[in-house]
């Protein structure tokens, strides 16, 4: 019972970064821009947030700074792929390399310095530690509660508003959207910046809310899992909530099992989320129904002008 409660209590903190990042990526890809840079943007977000807090700022300031850093690098990415029409796959991988390289170098002096992170609900509210539900709620923070709401809001915006319709049109058939008066470049750039914002938040959450420390490579391929989650969720922010919870639960199992001293091979356990990724992608590819992939994902749109 204790094990279960402990596990349930930490699942949201493992789910949140995956969910935030994948919602951002989904919007970018729905607008037609393949965005593989999540790993790099999350690393930048995590390190910038940690440095900011270590410099004596508020944790919220740290999170804002982390998000801003990722937005800045995604502005570069956006200019490269949307304005200068660079190859989206290569540019995305470049963002990963930049993110990991910069954080490795700039972050070195700050490695392993712990700091006071984002307060938990338990610190803010008077909750009964004897009550199992109280214990679970106490372990949460504002962001982990807001993340699923944000994901559902993103889904609603995408599917139910005219702005969302225009964004989806840009990713499905940019020529048709262009004729209908959608500014393709502006739309795609905005979507890319939003993805940067969300990936930066996800990274900052890892260092400021979960670990309270910066360690090189602390993102540990969660950015790549977010990329896989986009496919698993069939490009729907609502389905991403379920997918992120699935992965978050698997990820959260490892520290819990270690904590109770269960005799399981640790490295095998740490493989679990990735093995699960492969397995689920395999399953989704089996289900014959459409993948939901935007028809013009990754395609460069050039207007046919003869003026």
């Amino acid at each position: 019972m204790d094990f279960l409660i402990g596990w349930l209590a930490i699942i949201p903190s493992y789910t949140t970064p995956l969910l935030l990042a994948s919602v951002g990526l989904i919007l970018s890809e729905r607008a037609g821009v393949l965005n593989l840079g999540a790993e790099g943007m999350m690393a930048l977000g995590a390190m910038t947030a940690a440095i900011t807090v270590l410099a004596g700022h508020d944790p919220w300031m740290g999170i804002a700074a982390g998000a801003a850093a990722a937005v800045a690098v995604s502005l570069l990415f956006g200019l490269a792929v949307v304005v200068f029409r660079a190859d989206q796959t290569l540019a995305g991988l470049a963002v990963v390399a930049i993110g990991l390289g910069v954080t490795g170098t700039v972050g070195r002096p700050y490695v392993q310095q712990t700091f006071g992170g984002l307060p938990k609900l338990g610190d803010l509210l008077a909750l009964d530690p004897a009550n199992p539900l109280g214990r679970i709620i106490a372990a949460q923070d504002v962001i982990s509660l807001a993340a699923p709401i944000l994901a559902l809001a993103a889904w609603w915006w995408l599917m139910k508003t005219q702005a969302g319709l225009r964004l989806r049109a840009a990713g499905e058939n940019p020529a048709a959207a262009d004729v209908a008066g959608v500014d393709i470049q502006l739309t795609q750039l905005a979507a890319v910046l939003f993805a940067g914002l969300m990936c930066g938040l996800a990274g900052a959450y890892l260092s400021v809310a979960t670990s309270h420390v910066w360690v090189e490579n602390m993102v540990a391929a969660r950015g790549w899992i977010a990329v896989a989650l986009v496919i698993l969720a069939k490009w729907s922010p609502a389905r991403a909530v379920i997918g992120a919870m699935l992965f978050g639960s698997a990820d959260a199992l490892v520290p819990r099992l270690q904590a109770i001293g269960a005799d399981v091979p640790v490295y095998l356990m740490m493989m679990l989320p990735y093995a699960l990724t492969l397995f689920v992608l395999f399953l989704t590819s089996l289900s014959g129904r459409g993948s939901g992939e935007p028809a013009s994902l990754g395609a460069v749109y050039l207007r046919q002008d003869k003026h």
Partner: protein
Amino acid sequence: MHVLPAGTPPALDLRGICKAFDGKPALDDAHFSLAWGEVHALVGENGAGKSTLMNVATGVYAADHGSQIVDGSELSPRSPQEATDAGIGMVHQHFRLVDRFSVAENVLLTLGGRVRSLRAAADLIAAKAREVGLDVDPFRQVSTLSIAERQRVEILKVLLLGARIIILDEPTAVLTEEESSALLVFTRRLADADHAVVLITHKLKEVAAHTDRITVMRHGKTVLAGAPMAEVSEAEVGRLIVGEAVVAAARPQSRPGEERLVVRGLGFDGQKRGGAVELTLRAGEVLGLAGVGGNGQEQLVACLAGTLAASAGSFTLSGVDVTRATPSRRRDLGLRVIPASRFATGLVRQMSIAENLAMTNVRTGHFGGRWFLDRRRMKAAALAAIERFDIRGAGPNRRTELLSGGNAQKVLLARELDDGLKVLIAHSPSRGLDVKASEFVRDAIRAAVEAGAACLLISEDLQEVMGLSHRVAVMNGGVIAGNRPIADVTPEWIGALLTGHA
């Protein structure tokens, strides 16, 4: 066409429109006048300027000269948006729909801020569909709709944007006969409800019964302006469409040799019911296959080249049945192909001139035996070809994508017009080339045929067909609609076959 009060201004009046692309005139003093309440056919060959003229009218292109009057007032739209605001709408041949969206979502996308919600868009569609008598379900996803249904969605989109002047670009090209006649009946109804409709078309016969007036264009000029349909004969229109090209062309003598390519009852997708291609091509002659693009030419070439399986019939190369033979077997028997799109099935863009030239002979071991590539030999062959075919500004290692269209075509010619050539399939060999390069290509084909090859020339350019061929056939609806020696070819005959009479 119902009677309008005297003095009613025309719906659309285009006067003296000129438009050039890169110095080449596409429209040269073109005129077009469209009255309210009529269905007006705009006909002409490919490249005659019909679509360009309508693109000027809808603000896609800006005219270099000329004036445009819409419902009595001067208006030259500088953008498609301005044309839309002026009540002019065009349904393009290639639909602009988001397949994954529902009909209502597509309409909402187009109408933008003018509609508040998806629900409102769906209601508008349903109301408009009922009003004009088009059957459309607003909630169906576009990807599940037939071509005819998608066309209806496009027409509704244009109407919902407030268009009263409706231009349909080749609307029947993608439709079955039944769907076509339903569409034409619909356009008549639309015209009667105080709209004006332009039908851009090649298929004069199909639309003749449903149109009030006809305008014919040729080489960017208006050669027949708004004549009442009842007062012109089909032969007259056919002659106007093809012009004097047919008469003025040189007529080489035919001295046919042995049968090189015999096609019997060849069937493939895209033919009219029960259709089949019959052809006989002899050594030393050019058989010119004229016809409007999209009438089965692509499929015929693919069948002959071996990249598309024939669904019926057979054909022989020098007496050997090769209907099911591999492309390399056909090559061994002397078949060579110049495809319509150079880089799709002819050359490999990213590879060098030398590599492209060697490609077809690597298999025979000519360039380094079974395992290796003899670079030196490839280079020597490329240098020889560059010399012989006058390929400008390029060494053997230059990637073909960096060459001009004319020089890339010369690389292709150098490879295909080799010593083994027996039968040449040339599909629009001079398309997109300048005058000089075109002449070079034609001379090369003439020389090859002089030397004893047989050539099937498939082209939409009548001048090219007339200038090269010993015999002329016309392709329409996936079948050979007629076949005559060059001396018996008349403008009326070709015009009638092109537009689907006979």
